[in-house]
């Protein structure tokens, strides 16, 4: 590994840490800590283990097969096979994008006092402008470096001195003593917030744009493993501050407005502003990634030109796709949809489409025509398959129950 590769590994890890936290991570971890103390740390760990495997796989597919994920699936299984996964994927992307835009709007509301709905259009415009005018590297690295502000949650977690034994017990799944439905719903949403299909498409498309080859396998492995693990620690940090500050007082985080209290406790007024900044920056970065994902998926599946390396005039349909995608997402927030409820719902729904995305991906990753001698090992296949199917089954039961319960 030469100096250039070491630099890329460091950059990749920083990017993963800075980009790990987004609206779903903050919403699910805050509510998990506030409702169930440390009991829901295990879905964060489980989701991260799975996403490490999936991110590593998508990077490997790009480096060896020189294909981004959606394009490879379309090529391997045909257009008819990918129609419904793409349609469902785009619907979920739209909900997730609306949630991310909602997160930025809430951050703006916290700082200015102006209601979040009023920020929907300006935020949508800035997301669009950032993609339109910036290069891929500047988007990826710039936002991720700014996203390191989310490390404030880790500092906060140390500051509140959590009981280590209880935190460690949260690593193992346990049955809830009360509110079982909400417990499982939050578990599903947490996993959905981590294993986001847009991450896989974005990562593999970026790797193809950066012209990865076999020499990048080690960069890929370390970026996925270390970057995601550090990101997981940030998400656990969010949960711990909520568990230490909000849970003992019975504050259940039913609106985003209640969440900054978790950081205002340990850090005072700076904690309040850091919370707003972390929420705003993390969600802004994720909003860009989700918007670009919609364009990547549609362009790659339909065989259009795609990529951020070219000027918009060269990839008109690619650029038109994310432009059109941002508009309805902003409108969802503009009409006053509760961003927290939307976030939890969209994260849970994400788990329902995971089998549609991951199972064909697993087939691809075992195809020597794409991966040569770098196909998946047995353990990775089984681990990813079991986690995805279990999460899917859990989601089928938990989501209707949560809706029926009126939460």
């Amino acid at each position: 590994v030469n100096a250039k590769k070491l630099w890329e590994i460091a950059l990749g890890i920083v990017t993963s840490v800075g980009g790990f936290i987004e609206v779903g991570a903050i919403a699910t971890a805050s509510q998990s800590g506030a409702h169930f103390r440390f009991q829901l740390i295990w879905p964060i760990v489980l989701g991260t283990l799975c996403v490490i495997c999936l991110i590593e796989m998508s990077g490997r597919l790009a480096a060896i097969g020189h294909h981004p994920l959606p394009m490879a699936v379309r090529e391997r299984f045909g257009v008819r096979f990918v129609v419904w996964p793409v349609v469902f994927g785009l619907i979920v992307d739209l909900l997730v994008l609306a949630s991310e835009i909602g997160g930025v709007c809430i951050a703006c509301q916290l700082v200015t006092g102006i209601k979040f709905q009023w920020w929907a259009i300006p935020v949508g415009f800035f997301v669009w402008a950032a993609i339109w005018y910036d290069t891929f590297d500047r988007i990826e690295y710039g936002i991720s470096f700014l996203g390191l502000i989310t490390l404030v949650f880790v500092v906060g977690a140390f500051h509140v001195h959590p009981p280590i034994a209880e935190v460690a017990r949260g690593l193992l799944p346990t049955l809830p003593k009360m509110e079982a439905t909400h417990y499982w719903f939050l578990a599903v949403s947490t996993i959905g917030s981590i294993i986001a299909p847009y991450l896989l498409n974005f990562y593999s498309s970026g790797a193809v744009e950066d012209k990865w080859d076999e020499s990048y396998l080690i960069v890929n492995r370390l970026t996925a493993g270390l970057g995601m693990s550090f990101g997981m620690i940030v998400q656990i940090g969010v949960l711990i501050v909520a568990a230490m500050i909000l849970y003992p007082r019975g504050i259940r985080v039913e609106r985003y407005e209640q969440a900054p209290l978790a950081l205002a406790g340990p850090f005072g007024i700076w904690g309040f502003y850091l919370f707003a900044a972390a929420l705003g920056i993390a969600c802004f970065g994720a909003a860009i990634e989700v918007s670009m994902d919609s364009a990547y998926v549609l362009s790659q599946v339909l065989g259009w030109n795609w990529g951020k390396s070219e000027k918009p005039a060269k990839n008109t349909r690619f650029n038109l796709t994310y432009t059109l995608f941002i508009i309805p997402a902003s409108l969802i927030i503009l009409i006053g949809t509760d961003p927290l409820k939307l976030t939890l719902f969209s994260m849970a729904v994400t788990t329902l489409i995971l089998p549609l995305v991951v199972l064909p991906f697993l087939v691809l990753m075992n195809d020597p025509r794409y991966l040569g001698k770098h196909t998946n090992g047995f353990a990775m296949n089984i681990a990813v398959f079991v986690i995805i199917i279990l999460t899917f089954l859990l989601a089928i039961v938990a989501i209707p129950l949560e809706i029926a319960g009126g939460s």
Partner: protein
Amino acid sequence: MRISLILLLLPLLATGCEHPDEKAERVDKTTGSWSTAVRLTAEDFEHAKVPQLYVKQMLDAAQEELPQSHKDLADVPPTQRTGPDARLTLLEARVHAMQEALDMGANDHLIAIATTMPVDAQHTKSEGAARRSRETP
């Protein structure tokens, strides 16, 4: 296909209607949560830990959310909803009074009202215990 549909609908049928006891308990928890959140916000404001505009946002959010709890209680039998309803109404009145105090710039009055608000009893068994836990970082 039919079996899959039944399996999907089974959880919905099993819990299609939330039990009145559970609903009343949920409303009580929500009331307690908002009560504590509003009180903590006012106390943080007193100690300059949050800006004034955040206090207004918290009060607005509480005023937007609490009416939904009234609607939820409408399905609960009168004997079971008396307590939760009274606590909810009291909280709404206090939040409204705090909003008025804030609008008039009477910050001392706002904090005085906040200190009369009970903290949630779900996790903290007494107000004294709650105060002690608040003092921890």
